[in-house]
């Protein structure tokens, strides 16, 4: 190991008090930017009364929590509906995204760029009029206000992530392993089932997580297609916010934050750097 006499350490690597102070200040600012809004939400969730110009709530309490979680309250029902819809959306999306991702990553596909762009469409177009038009069609065929209708809308929107990440996951599998299995006489299906799919599983789980969260958080499509029978958690939260009831909306927002932050904490276990590097290629 040669020393590096010529390489002067950058100012940021110096253990000088000034550099340390600078780093700490930047980190503190970033921490405030990230946690400030979350802390504010937490305060609102436990505030009984809070108005101008008080810096903190005048009175803390759990009154609003009882209201949200009362047996006849609709928050728990909405939570159940949201999770059930998200699970169905994941199952449906992966069923079509796995073959599609494999084809995009491994097979010679005509118009590959155009196909990738097609999957980008549901994220590329302001969804509102699309949902309005879907709602009109679904109304005629009896899918409006049904779980299936909402799942179909969520799945078409979540497919971009499912397909892109599945494709990246398959692309990051070492092809020489597949080649070895094929040379030893495995059929393409056996090779896919026993070599490619297990190696791509972490990436596919990540893709499932993304689709689950997309569905859990989806707002506009549910509003138009789910009406009047399907009320998901984001819809409940939005109504509370617009109604000026910050306590109810903050508590509902906290419920939505739990899965979001939970998945954030584990996502890198599934989404490795080698898969990330393949996204969009």
């Amino acid at each position, binding site marked *: 190991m040669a020393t590096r006499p010529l390489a002067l350490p950058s100012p940021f690597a110096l253990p000088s008090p000034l550099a340390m102070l600078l780093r700490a200040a930047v980190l503190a600012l970033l921490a405030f930017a990230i946690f400030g809004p979350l802390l504010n939400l937490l305060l609102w969730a436990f505030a009984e009364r809070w108005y101008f110009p008080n810096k903190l709530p005048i009175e803390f309490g759990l009154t609003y929590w009882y209201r949200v979680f009362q047996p006849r309250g609709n928050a728990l029902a909405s939570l159940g509906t949201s999770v059930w819809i998200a699970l169905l959306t994941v199952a449906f999306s992966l069923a079509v995204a796995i073959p*599609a991702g494999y084809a995009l990553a491994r097979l010679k596909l005509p118009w590959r760029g155009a196909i990738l762009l097609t999957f980008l469409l549901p994220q590329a177009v302001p969804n509102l009029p699309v949902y309005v038009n879907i709602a009109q069609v679904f109304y005629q065929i009896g899918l409006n206000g049904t779980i299936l209708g909402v799942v179909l809308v969520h799945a078409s929107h979540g497919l971009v992530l499912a397909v892109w990440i599945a494709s990246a996951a398959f692309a990051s599998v070492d092809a020489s392993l597949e080649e070895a299995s094929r040379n030893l006489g495995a059929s393409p299906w056996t090779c896919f089932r026993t070599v490619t799919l297990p190696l791509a599983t972490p990436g596919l789980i990540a893709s499932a997580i993304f689709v689950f969260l997309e569905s859990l958080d989806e707002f506009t499509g549910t509003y138009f297609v789910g009406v009047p029978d399907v009320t998901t958690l984001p819809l409940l939260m939005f109504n509370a916010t617009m109604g000026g009831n910050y306590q109810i909306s903050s508590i509902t927002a906290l419920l939505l934050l739990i899965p979001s932050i939970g998945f954030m904490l584990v996502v890198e276990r599934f989404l490795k750097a080698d898969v990330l590097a393949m996204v969009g*290629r």
Partner: protein
Amino acid sequence: MRGSAGEGQRQHPVITGKASTRGAALALIAPALAVVALFFVAPLAMSVVVAFRGKDGGFTLEHFAKSFDFYTTDLLFTLAIVVASTLLIGAVAIAIAGYLTLGGNPRTIAVLRWLYRWPLFIPFVVAGQLMRTFLAKNGMLNHVLIGSGLIEPLSAQSLLDWRGIVVAFVWKQAPFVTLLLAGAMASLEPQHIEAARNLGARRMSVLIDIVLPQVRGTLLVGLVLSFVTMLSVLSVPLMINPNSPTMVTVDVAYRISTHADYPVANALCLLSLALAAIGAVFYLRHAAARVEGG
């Protein structure tokens, strides 16, 4: 694209140009395409028809004329907000991912890695609610600014206008692009970076001259996805800045809910699509450059 093997690229075992392989590939991808076609492209086509159809059933441009009459400001406002947010997201992502890859202080890197990701999966509708209370005149931001003596109590102002939308967008989307970018940077050949560092290159020039060019594609994909995502968000502008000038998505919702004016709503949607096409062009140009460059 895939087969253009540079160093470290793998050759794929089953790639042949034969029609049967192509048929199999198309069969595998058909169900996914069908879902998008049925539940997205078809309603979008309906939207085009409605936007260009006059009362007599013939072709007309009056809905677009009306859209420009009423909403030119909002279209520009939307474009400005989304472009500004995209640029800020890119700057934040490069700064954080760059420090994670090249930074000299291990403890700072560990804290930063733990810190930046919190908003990653927080939904837009929740981000809107967070900022609606945080950035309000009586919100926590102003209380902290006043408490630390940075502003006078009387000069505290609500940030719930275009600034609030930009803050909410950057807060929510920057971690996503950072995650993609840091992943791509982590998979670079460490020797290149080491070599440059050994030759005495400063951290900043290593980032700009060596690291960034190699992860340009990933950065662009992240930014394009963010750009088009932000264009279609309804909840954030509706919660933070519902009054004029506002974003086109709010206008679309308004045309439908208040006037049941589907033609103009659909025309506005197509104009947003034109804005989103700018993002698509960026991606296509990048993809084309890669095919040429190998």
